[in-house]
């Protein structure tokens, strides 16, 4: 079984709104770069499948050479190989076309796992586009995966519950977070070993982008002014809060 996980390096997604600034319509370069959070859930899911079924696990990314040291975390967690297609586009069609290059080079990948959405563009589009380009099944928000004689059984989390789905053949699955796929923290020895792993760098390709023009990007203002209530006497504060909520007709 051969599994590929798509991983994207993004600016620190935990920077609070108050400290966030843009440069050229994108996050300022000063923020620490890291693998996106759902991508780490996907990597963890991939490693668990590797451990369970003896699969090989390739980590595939589209980005810049500077991302390599950050992507090595995926190897330290348990990935077998790292494949980076070089490019800088944010267009989902261009990204998917480039990821396809790496997947074709890996040959006979049974399953492609991706994070539910990237931690910078918050789109959740690339994986579906890629599945269509590869001509395979695509299922979103998967939390569990099992394999049985060429058939896959997966659990999909949706807004009002979950469901078990079954299919055969190759697929791209987007992975959501669950208590079972909280990313493991790699051991120091594994981090050191991951530094020595060779990285396959592939030249990116020009592909037709979507017919969409990005007009502008802005940071919306948070205009709420918090009224702090006293905290000496909780009974009093509780009554005060309820009274204030009624006064302003929220309750």
């Amino acid at each position, binding site marked *: 079984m051969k599994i590929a996980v798509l991983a994207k390096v993004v600016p620190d997604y935990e920077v609070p709104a108050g400290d966030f600034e843009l440069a050229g319509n994108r996050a300022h370069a000063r923020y620490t770069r890291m693998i996106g959070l759902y991508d780490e859930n996907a990597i963890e899911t991939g490693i668990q499948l590797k451990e369970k079924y003896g699969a090989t696990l390739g980590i595939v990314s589209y980005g810049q050479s500077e991302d390599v040291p950050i992507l090595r975390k995926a190897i330290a967690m348990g990935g077998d190989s790292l494949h980076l297609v070089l490019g800088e586009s944010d267009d*989902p069609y261009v990204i998917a076309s480039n990821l396809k290059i790496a997947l074709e080079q890996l040959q006979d990948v049974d399953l492609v796992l991706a994070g539910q959405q990237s931690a910078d563009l918050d789109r959740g589009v690339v994986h579906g586009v890629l599945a269509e380009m590869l001509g395979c099944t695509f299922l979103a928000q998967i939390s569990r995966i099992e394999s049985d004689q060429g058939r896959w059984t997966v659990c999909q989390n949706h807004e009002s519950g979950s*469901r078990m789905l079954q299919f055969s053949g190759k697929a791209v699955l987007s992975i959501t977070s669950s208590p079972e796929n909280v990313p493991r923290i790699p051991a120091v020895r594994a981090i050191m070993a991951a530094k020595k792993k060779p990285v396959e760098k592939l030249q990116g390709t020009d592909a037709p982008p979507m017919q*969409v023009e990005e007009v502008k990007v802005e940071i919306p203002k948070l205009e709420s002014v918090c009224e702090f209530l006293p905290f000496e006497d*909780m009974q009093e504060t*509780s009554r005060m809060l309820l009274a204030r909520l009624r006064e302003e007709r929220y309750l």
Partner: protein
Amino acid sequence: MKTLIIEKIEPKRIGELVTVGRILGETPDLLALGEGEVPGTYPRAYQCPETIAANLVDGVADLIQRDGYQVVLLSATTLGSEIAGRLGARLKAPVLSEVIEVKPDMTVKRPLYGGKAVAEYKIQGNPVILTIRRKYFEPAPLEGTTAAAVFNVESPSVVLLSEEQVQTQGVRLEDAEIIVSGGRGMGSADNFEVLREMAGLLRGAVGASRGAVDEGWASQTMQVGQTGNIVAPAVYFAVGISGASQHLAGIANAKCVVAVNKDEEANIFKRARFGVVCDYHKFIPALIQALREEQ
């Protein structure tokens, strides 16, 4: 713009998409998924019992091409995200997801960076596939029903083995006017009991942050935030929630946020209307008692 809505038979979701469709032109056509009457009136409606998006793409792509739809509207839900990318790639159509604003000239806005930024796009090509973030558009009231033409799925590739609907006690999260949400600061699953008690007294629903769901303290259906449920209650109580931008993205349209947090520096206070800086163990029981006294 000739527009097609694809959505499960859920009046609020369909209503929001009708509102968006009317911004772009006349009332859109509808492809309703699931069983039951098709709520609302449309120039043309189709109905398909299938709700697995993977099995719908082929038929939907043919329909769009045959009838010349210029805009396809989906909700930014599991179903919407499952269908949008594949459909877009099939039709070589632009796909914009999680859209929060739409203008008649095909300018749309969507958030980036966990809601810390908002990007505006001008769409040039068509057809275009849009997934619309929930709770950003007032749902159009759907009057009457429409007799829908049967839409069949040929050779489905994905099989539904079982479905589990999480039973919610009381009010559904997405319909709740009051939501009491807990985060990592709750400390354990058992501690959510006080939030349930409080929500019960307020006739509200209990929510959770992604942190609490990842800890296994709350079910994933309770998750509020960018990648969970997008909610717009009158009052949102954030208890032990730090207020990461991805969480705030799920409550952008809440009218009043009340934050209870030990850490006065917590980001949630920047979004809150009322704040109580203290251990929730002290405050929530007092609030419950105050609510009881009122009854």
